[in-house]
């Protein structure tokens, strides 16, 4: 039976999934075949790289969620506060001044709405550069400037 080396190497990657006979077959084939050794090492590299990418994705996910939450919460609040302030000042003006001296409320609302629409968006957090997981373990302070 022809051996599927991709499958056998990956079962070796998952440790418990190879039998003694399969391990011996893999070992003998690796010793004899340089191309198979290159395939094996490529899989090892992929294994390490996927672990690093998954770790980096984990680092990035939390701040992104936090950023989304902040964005959703502060802008409506700011707009609501501005509207309440406008309504209060409008009500005060209406109650104190005669009709002829009322300010142009429509124009005031329009310009305020425009101003709200142009409120600057919060700066986008830059994606973190490559974060060395082991360097982080060595000295977490080094990573502080990279916070996003």
């Amino acid at each position, binding site marked *: 039976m022809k051996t599927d080396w991709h499958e056998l190497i990956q079962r070796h990657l998952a*440790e*418990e999934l190879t039998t003694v006979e399969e*391990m011996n077959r893999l070992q003998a084939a690796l010793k004899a075949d340089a191309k198979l050794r*290159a395939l094996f*090492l490529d899989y090892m*590299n*992929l294994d*390490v790289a996927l672990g690093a990418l998954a770790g980096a994705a984990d680092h990035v996910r939390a701040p992104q969620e936090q950023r989304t939450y902040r964005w959703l919460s502060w802008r409506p609040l700011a707009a609501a506060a501005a509207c309440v302030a406008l309504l209060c000042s409008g009500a005060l003006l209406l109650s104190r001044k005669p009709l002829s001296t009322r300010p142009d409320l429509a124009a005031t609302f329009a310009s305020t709405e425009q101003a709200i629409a142009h409120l600057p968006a919060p700066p986008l957090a830059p994606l973190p550069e490559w974060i060395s997981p*082991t360097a982080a373990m060595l000295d977490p302070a080094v990573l502080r400037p990279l916070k996003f």
Partner: protein
Amino acid sequence: MSPSFDDAQHNQFLRLFAANEAALHTFVRSMLPSRQEAAEVMQDVAVTLWQKFSSADDFRPWAFGVARNMALRHLRSQARDRHVFDDELVNRLADEAATMEERHLTQREALAACLQKLPAMQRELALAAYTKGTRMDELATQRGQTPMSLYKLLQRIRQALLECVRRTLTQEERT
């Protein structure tokens, strides 16, 4: 304020270590039977490299030598089980891993793009399976699959990713 000698040395170490860390990790991983063991040995390697950094002339070969010794020591300290290759093969793999740094760097750089080519469900599964603390049996239960069918699916995803990064390498070699 200029940095003290220790700060400068520390920064230099971190620069060199960060530049070589991924290659060292692949090198150690190729010698050890599990990702977890490789991660543990890499932590010890990092500490040892820092402690002995002042005695290093040429960082890269020195670091690979330290990593090899520590991985071998780890193998010897473990009860040798059926998942460990013999010393001859471990050493040969280590030698060859050290010469494949450029190739592996290109593959690592291509991996993010290759992941994006996967269907979203497969991409998420690949990253979930590699996230620290993930248990495959729990992941399988969450997805309503048996662990074995999950392993099979992951095998297909890994193979697709490997073929993609290898294709990228071939294309880069042609240009």
